């Protein structure tokens, strides 16, 4: 009966309750869409920069990540490769031999990163073939390169043109080679799109005079959530001359950006919820003021104050819960739409994003946790706001209340 009473009391002033619920619903809608968009952007960032290039975990020669030179490369060892592959949560591995080089064509020269890869293994982790906009995927024995679109444009090259690569080999001698552009790659990340070229691993080892060597062993995971467990296991299992780094350790600036942006978003949501809290609170105060006589009458009849307080508490919870459910119901289709039709940024904003190496799009993500987190937050606000009316009810004096 108390719950029935509370539920009906909400609808005594239908307009006021609906306005309050709408305000709560709007806040929840805004919060869910904001968080979904932000997490979607971060997931996209991770997908672009992590999944597409670094992988979730890499094994290097000790000190390679600090000083990325061939001197810090390591000798490819089957035992190490097998140990990594057999670690629970690991799906694929691939070896890379990376070197910064000058890419040249005619009178144009650009700095670039040349990556020697096992085309088949690389494709299982980074799905490189899906980024080919012209030409075909490399074969292990090819003497050709896959070159990023931005780099080909800067060098004025096209598919099947010849590219000259110049750098220093493993033993310090000059290493130069000519390769045909077998395929052109398009990356969402401008950072990759403007400066990367892939060649088969054997060709890179030959070019750099680094037979049997690699600079990194990239680990593909069964699920991204496996990252902490896999990284922990590999850190323990790898010999002392190798180091294991997660993408977060390799690119701390990305983690910092995510953390800073998340903190900023939570501050904004905090302000939003503060404003909504005042709305809910004013409704509760009005309800409390209007019903003093009624509370007094109920107490006079023999209803204990704690029972009246329970009714008031239930009303607050119903009010916030309804607003919350309204917000979730409204936000789901919006988020669903945004997952399929990401917001595309334009103008200066797009430039800023691209400068940081992000795709200039805002895709949303649907995660149950985003919805439940907002529901819990609003309910906690409701619980907190209910404290004051409850205290007022518990201090009520029937005679004084009925005189009001």
């Amino acid at each position, binding site marked *: 009966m108390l719950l029935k009473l509370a539920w*009906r009391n909400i*609808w005594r002033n239908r307009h006021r309750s609906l306005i309050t619920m709408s305000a709560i619903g709007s806040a929840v809608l805004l919060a869910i869409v904001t968080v979904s968009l932000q997490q979607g952007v971060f997931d996209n960032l991770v997908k672009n920069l992590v999944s597409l290039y670094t992988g979730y975990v890499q094994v290097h020669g000790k000190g390679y990540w600090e000083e990325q030179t061939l001197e810090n490369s390591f000798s490819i060892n089957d035992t190490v490769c097998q140990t990594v592959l057999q670690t629970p949560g690991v799906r694929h591995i691939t070896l890379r031999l990376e070197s910064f080089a000058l890419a040249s064509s005619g009178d144009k020269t650009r700095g670039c990163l040349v990556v020697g890869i096992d085309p088949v293994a690389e494709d299982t982790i980074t799905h490189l073939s899906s980024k080919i906009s012209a030409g075909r995927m490399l074969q292990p024995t090819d003497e050709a390169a896959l070159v990023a679109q931005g780099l080909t444009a800067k060098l004025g090259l096209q598919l099947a043109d010849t590219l000259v690569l110049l750098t220093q080999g493993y033993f310090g001698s000059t290493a130069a080679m000519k390769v045909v552009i077998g395929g052109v790659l398009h990356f969402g990340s401008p950072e990759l799109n403007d400066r990367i070229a892939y060649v088969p691993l054997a060709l890179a080892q030959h070019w750099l005079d680094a037979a049997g060597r690699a600079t990194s062993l990239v680990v593909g995971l069964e699920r991204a959530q496996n990252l902490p467990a896999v990284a922990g296991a590999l850190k323990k299992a790898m010999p002392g001359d190798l180091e294991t780094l997660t993408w977060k350790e390799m690119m701390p600036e990305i983690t910092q950006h995510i953390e800073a942006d998340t903190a900023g978003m939570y501050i904004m949501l905090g302000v939003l919820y503060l404003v909504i809290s005042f709305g809910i609170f004013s409704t509760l105060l009005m309800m409390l003021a209007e019903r003093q006589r009624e509370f007094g*009458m109920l107490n006079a*009849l*023999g209803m*204990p104050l704690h029972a009246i307080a329970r009714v008031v508490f239930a009303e607050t919870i119903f009010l916030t819960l309804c607003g919350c459910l309204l917000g979730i119901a409204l936000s789901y289709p919006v988020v669903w739409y945004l997952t399929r039709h990401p917001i595309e940024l334009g103008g200066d904003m797009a430039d800023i994003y691209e400068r940081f190496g992000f795709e200039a799009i805002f895709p949303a993500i649907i995660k149950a946790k985003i919805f439940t987190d907002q529901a819990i937050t609003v309910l906690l606000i409701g619980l907190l706001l209910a404290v004051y009316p409850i205290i007022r009810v518990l201090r009520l004096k029937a*005679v004084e209340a009925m005189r009001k």
Partner: protein
Amino acid sequence: MDAVIDAHNISKVYNPDTIPVYAVNNVHLHLNRGDFAALVGPSGSGKTTLLNIIGGLDIPSDGWVEINGVNITGLPPNRLIDFRLHNIGFVFQAFNLIPVLTARENVEFIMLLQKRPKKEREARVRELLTAVGLEDKMDIRPAQLSGGQQQRVAVARALASKPQFVLADEPTANLDSQSATALLDIMEKLNREAGMTFLFSTHDRRVIDRARRVSTLVDGRVTKDEPGTTPSTTA
């Protein structure tokens, strides 16, 4: 006779430390089971204050109240609420019913607080609403009932808890003549047939004419009693 209410030396003083104002001044009141009594007097004479004290809603500055031999003045607040729930029925002048509950639910509400079994509640609700002539209005909310009908539901609710007596504070004040008469007929019938004790606070002539005991209050003192009442003031 069997005493239901025994109010001893009741005083209620406001501003005792500055300029004391006596709302009730040294009043004795003794009510027997089956009485149909009225406290009368002009506005501000202390009727409602005395009624509130007898009903355990207010605490006297002096004196004490016994209901069926239980001194309720000394009861702690929670026990007092429970005592009211099981022993006293109230009918107020206005804002009497819970607006979001139907007539049936309003009457049943008290019995729910008493944790009575469902079957008993349903039977008693029907019996009481029939007794007040509202058996066809059970599922209607107060806003759809007339003032007189609302007060009849309030009477049914007051009796739902099977109280020792009913306190009615100006029950006819907001009613037209016909509704007031109908309400008084019902209460008089309940008094006569079921032996329910009623104590009214009123200045309505229609109530005074029907009361079998009338105590007149002026400036917080009982100045007059109709025959059959216990002597009421020592001042």
